[in-house]
């Protein structure tokens, strides 16, 4: 039985599928090492870059009242249309309106964390629009009705065999788990989709207030394809993405590549502040930028505003001992890992109590702060949030989670576990059904689905292996 001191996340970690654990642990460790090598190889004092970038972001946030209108004006002057959304629903509605006003029916989309927050994909589908993820990882998440477990590597929890099965199921060729084949099939499939789509949606990693330029980084080139094949470009951007000048982009593009994936620069680093130029045959005739608040101003008003510096590089996830053990889904929200333990409860607004246990999912070892390219004092912020949870008597900060508690109970009884494993298809319904009667879990479940139950295969495999 779970002991009283165990947190939800501990239980999740204990029950994690060993294959998932291996994928997550191996991937995060390798990326952490690469990050370290490339930073120390290139700079005598990488810490100075981190501290400076942190100061630049802090300055921008504390002067957002000047920088945001500045970016808006620069974008408008360049022919882009600028929209503001107070919350996620407003952002989704604005995007739907843009599509309707242009008679658009389908969207190709590159990776954007804020669109995950707003649930844009589901919203558009519910309103009769097609919306296709083009980042390979996000595409796989979409066809699996899964959700990302890492902010940079959304399918960190999957291995090639899982993916090969999904591709086979979706009619993307016979089972083949060679990563090159998987990638080539996705290339061929998505190619046609870009040309069919009416709208290309991207996020932005940074926005220069000086020129309004959206800096968008991808390795695959999918954001670039979205902006070459479709007639309308929509950028969905959290208001915290601003930086003061174009020249600051050198510092930030250098840090995001190195911190996120151990690259000097991400393969495609794009700077966009308007529709295509006269004479250019390809690309959007319209550019829209939607600046999204969605509780960011609440965070700005709080004593945790430093978290808004975050550039979503994922370095803190990769280095975090808790994330490595538990993987991303354990955090039950769009943002996992140390950044998520701070940001998710804050962005939850009145639903803060539901995620108030997350700030406890840390040993406060400080590794996240050490790697953070904008030097966010994550351990301090976690303590401030624990304090908030206590003073607000947020029950969840102390109590266990019912669904995970059940899962824990099941997993700690070998007989019950085996029985559950062989129940097969029934288990596909059970977790969701169970979760929906528990309000916090239902809220989480309302915008996402648990991955299809595939339990039992590992045990079976082990048994078969033992025979040989």
């Amino acid at each position, binding site marked *: 039985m779970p002991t009283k001191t165990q947190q939800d996340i501990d239980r999740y970690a204990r029950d994690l599928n060993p294959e998932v654990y291996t994928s997550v642990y191996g991937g995060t460790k390798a990326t952490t090492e690469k990050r370290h090598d490339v930073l120390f190889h290139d700079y005598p004092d990488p810490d100075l870059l981190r501290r400076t970038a942190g100061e630049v972001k802090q300055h921008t946030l*504390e002067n957002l009242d000047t920088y945001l209108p500045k970016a808006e004006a620069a974008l408008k002057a360049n022919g882009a249309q600028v929209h503001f959304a107070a919350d996620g629903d407003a952002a989704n509605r604005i995007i739907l309106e843009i599509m309707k006003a242009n008679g658009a029916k389908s969207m190709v989309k590159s990776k954007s964390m804020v669109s995950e927050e707003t649930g844009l994909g589901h919203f558009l589908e519910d309103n009769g629009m097609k919306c296709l993820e083009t980042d390979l990882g996000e595409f796989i998440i979409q066809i699996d009705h899964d959700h990302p477990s890492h902010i940079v590597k959304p399918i960190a929890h999957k291995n090639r065999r899982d993916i090969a099965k999904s591709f086979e199921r979706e009619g993307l060729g016979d089972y083949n788990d060679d990563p090159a084949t998987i990638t080539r099939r996705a290339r061929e499939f998505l190619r046609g989709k870009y040309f069919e789509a009416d709208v290309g949606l991207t996020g932005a990693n940074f926005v220069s207030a000086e*020129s309004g330029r959206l800096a968008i980084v991808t390795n695959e080139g*999918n954001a670039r394809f979205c902006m070459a094949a479709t007639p309308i470009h929509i950028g969905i951007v959290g208001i915290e993405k601003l930086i003061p000048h174009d020249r600051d982009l050198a510092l930030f593009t250098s840090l995001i590549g190195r911190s996120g994936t151990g*690259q000097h620069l991400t393969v495609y680093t794009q700077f966009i502040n308007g529709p295509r130029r006269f004479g250019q*045959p390809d690309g959007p005739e319209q550019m829209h930028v939607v600046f999204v*608040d969605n509780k960011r101003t609440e965070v700005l*008003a709080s004593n945790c505003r430093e978290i808004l510096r975050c550039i979503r590089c994922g370095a803190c996830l990769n280095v975090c001992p808790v994330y490595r053990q538990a993987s991303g889904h354990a955090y039950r929200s769009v943002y996992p890992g140390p950044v998520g333990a701070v940001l998710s409860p804050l962005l939850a607004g009145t639903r803060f109590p539901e995620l108030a246990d997350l700030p406890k999912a840390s040993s406060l070892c400080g590794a996240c702060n050490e790697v953070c390219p904008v030097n966010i004092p994550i351990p301090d912020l976690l303590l401030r949030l624990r304090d908030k949870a206590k003073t607000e008597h947020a029950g969840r900060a102390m109590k266990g989670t019912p669904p995970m508690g059940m899962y824990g109970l099941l997993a700690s009884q070998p007989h019950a576990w085996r029985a559950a494993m062989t129940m097969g298809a029934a288990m596909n319904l059970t977790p969701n059904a169970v979760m929906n009667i528990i309000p916090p879990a239902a809220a989480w479940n309302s915008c996402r689905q648990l991955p299809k139950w595939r339990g039992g295969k590992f045990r079976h495999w082990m048994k078969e292996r033992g025979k040989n």
Partner: protein
Amino acid sequence: MQDDRELVMSRIREALAPLKERAQYPEYDPELPVCRAHPEFADDWELFSHKMKQVNGTPLKGLDALGQWLAQQGFKLGYCDPALVETVRAHPAFAGITLETTFERSRVDDYTFGITQASGAIAETGSIVLKDSETSSRLGALAPWTHIAILKRARLYPDSITAISHFGDDPSIIWATGPSKTADVEGILIEGVHGPGVQVCCLLD
């Protein structure tokens, strides 16, 4: 939505009002993001070549080198920027290769390569710079398996700071650092996801 604009702006002002003082912009050395010097390379092109090879790009010096490289590829048909087509066609290496100067989306898979101008390159990172004003077709530079960027030496910048100072007023600037790639599947590097699987930069003096 106009109302939302006012709402967001007023929330920002309210959030910031209690701050007694606001964090200052750190007046940092603009050279801070510049990498350690590489005295072992004779010039920026040597450094660029080295860096581009590190990301599996293909740097080539001069049309002859490009011609030799092309001969090994067995290309038949590609897209070429109309402004470059005369220069390229004049070279014997291109005999027998069809160059089209418009990119037809309906025939996207027919083009085995695309040749466009590089607006610049960054030595420190091995990146090529593509600007909308000088890229004859965004698709021509993106969709074919091989992209060949033609670079004039004067446009080779030492670092990203210098490249940024040459942004000008272009609405779409791309730094491409090697071929398109992913490591989403088990962290294994695969090239040519959506963009080129082969990225060439050919230097013209």
